[in-house]
C-alpha cells in the first residue's frame, strides 16, 4: 500500500511563501497530475515529498507511515527531476541500472529491468552511450527510464515529457499511463501542459500561488472549475467569462432569458467555447467575429460581444468572414456561475 497523505505542508523561503498549507490525499495506485503555472510551487512540493527540501510545517505520510523525517533513500520512491539529473559519468545503461544496483539486485534482474525500461522509452540504441552525447529529449527519457526501472511504489515526475516532440510525447504519455496502471504505481506527475494532465490523470490538482485551488477528475476540473483561475488555466481555449447582471431571478442576454442562480447581483457566466449553439439568424447573444481559425476538427472563432472578448467553437466547414454577426445560445446546463467579485464558483445546483 502506498497511499500518500500530504497534511498541511507549508514552505517558506526566507520571507517568500512557496507553499501554503497543502493538503492532499492520494489513493494507492492513483495517478495525480499537479497542474499549475510556472512558480506556483509544484517542484517544491515534490521535493518535500521526496525529502530533498525541508518543510516549514506539516507531515507527509506514505502507506500509513509518517515519513516526514525519514531520509530520502528510505522513503521508497523514485523521481524524475525537472532538469533530468542524469549522471554524466555513467553510460545510459548504468544510469538506468543505478537504482537497482543500490538495491543490490542481481545482474539478471538488472539486465531485464533495464531492457524493459529502455524499450518502453525507446532508448535501446543509446544504452552504451554517455549522456553528453544525447539530445535533451533523449536524456529526459533516460531519466524516466531510470525511475521506472526500480518499479517504485511511489513515483514522482517533474515535467518528464516536457522536452519531447508532440508525437513522441503523445506516444510516451499513453505508454506511461498503461505501465503505471499495470504496476499499480502511485504517481504524482507535475506538468503545466493541461492536455497532458487531462489525458493522464485520475485526478488533477490545480495549483496556484502555493495552494491547491481545485482537485477533481479531469472532466470536472474542465467543466466545473471552482475559480476563474482554474477555468482560464485548464482547457484550450480558456473558459469564457461573461459578466452578467441578475434581476428578479433572471438574466437577460440580448433577449435570451436564463434562470439566474441568484435573484440579484453581478455574476460571471463561465462558458466553454464549445458550449455555445450558433444561430445565423442572430438570435441570442450578439457576437461579432474578429478572427476565425480553422483547426481541422473545428473552427475557433474569436470575437466580441458587447465589448467582451469571447472564444466560440464552430463547425469545421463554415465560412466566417470578419465582422459577421452571429447569435450565441449558451447551453444553460453547462454554464458555471461565478461571483463577479471573488471569482469563485457559486455552489453548484445539481446539473440536470
Amino acid at each position, binding site marked *: 500500500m502506498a497511499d500518500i497523505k500530504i497534511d498541511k505542508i507549508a514552505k517558506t523561503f526566507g520571507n517568500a511563501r512557496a507553499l501554503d498549507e497543502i493538503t492532499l490525499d492520494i489513493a494507492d495506485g492513483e495517478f495525480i497530475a499537479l497542474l499549475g503555472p510556472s512558480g506556483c510551487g509544484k517542484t517544491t512540493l515534490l521535493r518535500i515529498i*521526496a525529502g*530533498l527540501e525541508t518543510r516549514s510545517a506539516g507531515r507527509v505520510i506514505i502507506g500509513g507511515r509518517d515519513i516526514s523525517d525519514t*531520509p*530520502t*533513500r528510505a522513503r521508497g*520512491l*523514485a*523521481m524524475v*527531476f525537472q*532538469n533530468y*539529473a542524469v*549522471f*554524466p*559519468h555513467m553510460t545510459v545503461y548504468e544510469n538506468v541500472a*543505478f*537504482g537497482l544496483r*543500490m*538495491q543490490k539486485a542481481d545482474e539478471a534482474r538488472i539486465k531485464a529491468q533495464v531492457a524493459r525500461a529502455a524499450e518502453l522509452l525507446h532508448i535501446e540504441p543509446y544504452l552504451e*552511450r*554517455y549522456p*553528453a*552525447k544525447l539530445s535533451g529529449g533523449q536524456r529526459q527519457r533516460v531519466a524516466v527510464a*531510470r525511475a521506472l526501472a*526500480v518499479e517504485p511504489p511511489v513515483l514522482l515526475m517533474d515535467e518528464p515529457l516536457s522536452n519531447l516532440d508532440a508525437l513522441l510525447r503523445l506516444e510516451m504519455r499513453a505508454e506511461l499511463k498503461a505501465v503505471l496502471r499495470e504496476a499499480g504505481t502511485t504517481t504524482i506527475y507535475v506538468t503545466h501542459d493541461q492536455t497532458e494532465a487531462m489525458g493522464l490523470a485520475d485526478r488533477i490538482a490545480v495549483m496556484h500561488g502555493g495552494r491547491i485551488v481545485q482537485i477533481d477528475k479531469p472532466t470536472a476540473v474542465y467543466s466545473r472549475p471552482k475559480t476563474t483561475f482554474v477555468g482560464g488555466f485548464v482547457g484550450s481555449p480558456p473558459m469564457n467569462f461573461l459578466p452578467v447582471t441578475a434581476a428578479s431571478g433572471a438574466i437577460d442576454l440580448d433577449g435570451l432569458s436564463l434562470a439566474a442562480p441568484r435573484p440579484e447581483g453581478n455574476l460571471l457566466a463561465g462558458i466553454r467555447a464549445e458550449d455555445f449553439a450558433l444561430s445565423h439568424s442572430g438570435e441570442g447573444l450578439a457576437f461579432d467575429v474578429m478572427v476565425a481559425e480553422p483547426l481541422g476538427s473545428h473552427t475557433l472563432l474569436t470575437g466580441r460581444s458587447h465589448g467582451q472578448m469571447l472564444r466560440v467553437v464552430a463547425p469545421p466547414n463554415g465560412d466566417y468572414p470578419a465582422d459577421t454577426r452571429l447569435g450565441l445560445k449558451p447551453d444553460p446546463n453547462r454554464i458555471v456561475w461565478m461571483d463577479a467579485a471573488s471569482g469563485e464558483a457559486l455552489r453548484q445546483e445539481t446539473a440536470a
Partner: protein
Amino acid sequence: MTTVRSRLLPYLLLAPSVAFLAALFLVPLIQTITLSFSEDGVPSLANYTRMVSDLNFGLAVRNTFLLVLTVVPIQIVMALAMAMMLQKLPRGRDVVLWIWTIPLGISDLAAGLVWLAILQDRGYLNSALYGLGLIDGPTAWLTYETPVALFFGVLVAEVWRATAIVLVILFAGLQLIPKEYKEAAEVFGARPWTTFVRITLPLLKPSLQTALILRTVLAFEVFAVVYAIGGTNFPVLVGEAYNWQRNYQNTGVAAAYAMLIVAISLGATVVFLWALRTKPEQQA
C-alpha cells in the same frame, strides 16, 4: 580578411606570455640541461655519475619519495574531508575556509621555523610533555640519530603548511557539481558513502587531478621546511642541489639534481594526467 585576422588573433594575444615564458623558463632550462651534461665545456655524464655516487644521493631520493608518498595522500584525504564538511555547513563557510587557509599565507621557511620552535629540544612540545610528566627532560627529536621522529616532524609541518591549497582546489571543484546529482543518487537509495564514492568522487576527478599534480610537483621540491627543521640531518633532492651549488661550488652536479627533479615531476604529471583523465563524453 576578417577570418584570417580572427584566426590569428588568439595567437597574437598569447604571444607576449609565450615569449615571456620562453625567456624566463625555456632559456634557463636549456642552460641547465647543457650544464648538467657537460664537464669543462665538453659533453659528459660526469655530473650524473658524481651525483649518483654521492653518499647522500640514495638518502635524498629515499627521503624525498617517502615524504611525497606520505604527505600528498594525507593531504588529499584531509582536504577532501575538510571540503565535504565545509559544504555541509549551512552558514559561515567563508569564515571557516578563511581560517583553514591561513597557513597558505605563511612562507614555507617561516612555517618551518614555527614548527622548529615547537619541536626542538627546548621547544613547546618538550615543555608540554615534561610538564605533564611524560618525559624526564628535554628530548632531541630532530637529530641524525632519530630519523623517524625527524621524518614525522617534517611530515606534520608539511601537512600543516600545504593542505589548504588542496582544500581550496577541491572545495571549488565540489561547488561546481550540481546538487541534483547527489539528490538523484539519494532518491535511488544511495547511502552517503556510496554517493560520495559513486557520484561525488568521479565528478570531482578534474579537480583531484589538478590538486594532485600541483601538490606532487611542489612536494618533490620540498626544501625550506626540511632545512628549517632538520638542517642537513634529513637530506632531500632540492637540498642536495642547494648543497652542491652553495657549499661545494659545483654547479654541474647541482644542475644534474635539478634535471632529476624536473624529470620526476614531469613523470608524476604524466601519470596523473593519464590515470585521472576524463573522457570528453563523460564530462558534466
